[in-house]
């Protein structure tokens, strides 16, 4: 049994999951702006996002174990693609303070479980893959509007679209999680 009742109408389920992840991302961004609360906000926000996937079957979230080697290789490939522009641009990249590294891992896993896991599955059930890809990308971009300047939202949307298309094309969430963690640790 998921957080959202398994027997709830797909529309209700998708609306609930979408509203929940947006609220959590908004709360995380708001608390993150407060002095001394950034790391706690990231870790708790990541945990709260992961909560929405709690109880869902692993296969429904794209977390099956078949072809696990390919999934890991895919994750490395996604990480390389996400870092490619920063790597090519200058040979130097932004640095993440060590204290934020654990928080970055927590929030990237939480975001993948929420957006490409639970939300994607709910939208897929409601309207199929096109709605799942477009819907999860739009909500992912909207959620990042709370924490990112508008100039960055194009890159955020494109990253969300890439991860969602991978989720659809490979029926896999392991690679997006690995790729997202790699990108967040480096950037």
């Amino acid at each position, binding site marked *: 049994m998921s957080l959202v009742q398994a027997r709830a109408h797909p529309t209700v389920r998708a609306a609930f999951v979408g509203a929940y992840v947006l609220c959590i991302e908004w709360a995380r961004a708001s608390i993150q702006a407060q002095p001394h609360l950034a790391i706690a906000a990231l870790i708790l926000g990541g945990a709260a996002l992961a909560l929405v996937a709690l109880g869902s079957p692993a296969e429904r979230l794209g977390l099956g174990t078949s072809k696990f080697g390919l999934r890991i290789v895919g994750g490395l490939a996604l990480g390389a693609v996400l870092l490619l522009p920063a790597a090519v641009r200058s040979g130097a990249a932004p640095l993440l303070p060590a204290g934020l590294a654990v928080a970055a891992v927590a929030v990237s896993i939480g975001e993948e479980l929420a957006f490409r896991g639970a939300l994607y599955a709910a939208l897929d059930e409601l309207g199929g893959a096109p709605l799942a890809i477009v819907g999860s990308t739009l909500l992912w971009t909207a959620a990042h509007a709370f924490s990112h300047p508008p100039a960055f939202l194009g890159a955020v949307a*494109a990253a969300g679209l890439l991860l969602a298309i991978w989720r*659809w094309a490979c029926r896999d969430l392991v690679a997006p999680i690995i790729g997202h963690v790699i990108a*967040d640790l480096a950037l």
Partner: protein
Amino acid sequence: MRRAALLAAAVTTYVVAAWMVAPGFYDGFGPPQPYNWTCAPSQAGANIKPSSGHLDIKVVGGVSDANSAFTGDGQVVIGFLPGAFDATGKTTISVDITPLPTCPKPSGIRFVTNVYQITATAPLRMPANLLLRYSNLEPAPTDISLASDPAGPWKSIGAQQQSQPFTIVTQTSSFGYFSAGYSSASSPSGSVTVGGGQVLPIVVAAVIVLVVLAGVPLAMLRRRRSAQPEDAETHEDEA
């Protein structure tokens, strides 16, 4: 085939979109806005020159008010407690924050922020809180340095242990030139070095090579298996 084509299109779209804004996709751990550089590093992309700031502090009954001076872009904030200034004979105290148009490189220190000159029309009687924002394109600074002349000598005035990400805070008892940095004799502390310097391109290149080396045999293995009758596991994720 259609899936592979869409995936390739998504990769291309991402690379183009991320190329248009430095550093590309990142997940909100960076500063709320790009740093405005006096001397921008090569990876900074489009740069806006840093702002200055001005504040007039009222003096009531010989005691200066509590107030904060800050630059227009928020990269420097200096806060004063009530009575922080020696306000003898004054009714107003002016504080000015001006980014230095040059970028001093004193030996032994690697500055990661602009150098700012902070002046006031009265001397301090109590320490003021100084906050400098820094960029995520540079390693985190370990302390703030102060000099009475940009040519030096520069003296560390420390840093508080706790501050918001990408800001460094300390207290100062005098005005002059301020910048945040770290000792160039040692690696900066508090940064994940895997993401920085020349390491990133090497890591990305290694990952690409690994993906190609590991991906080709895995793809061949998969193709060989798909030529055989599919077993139940093939459909494991299609539920």
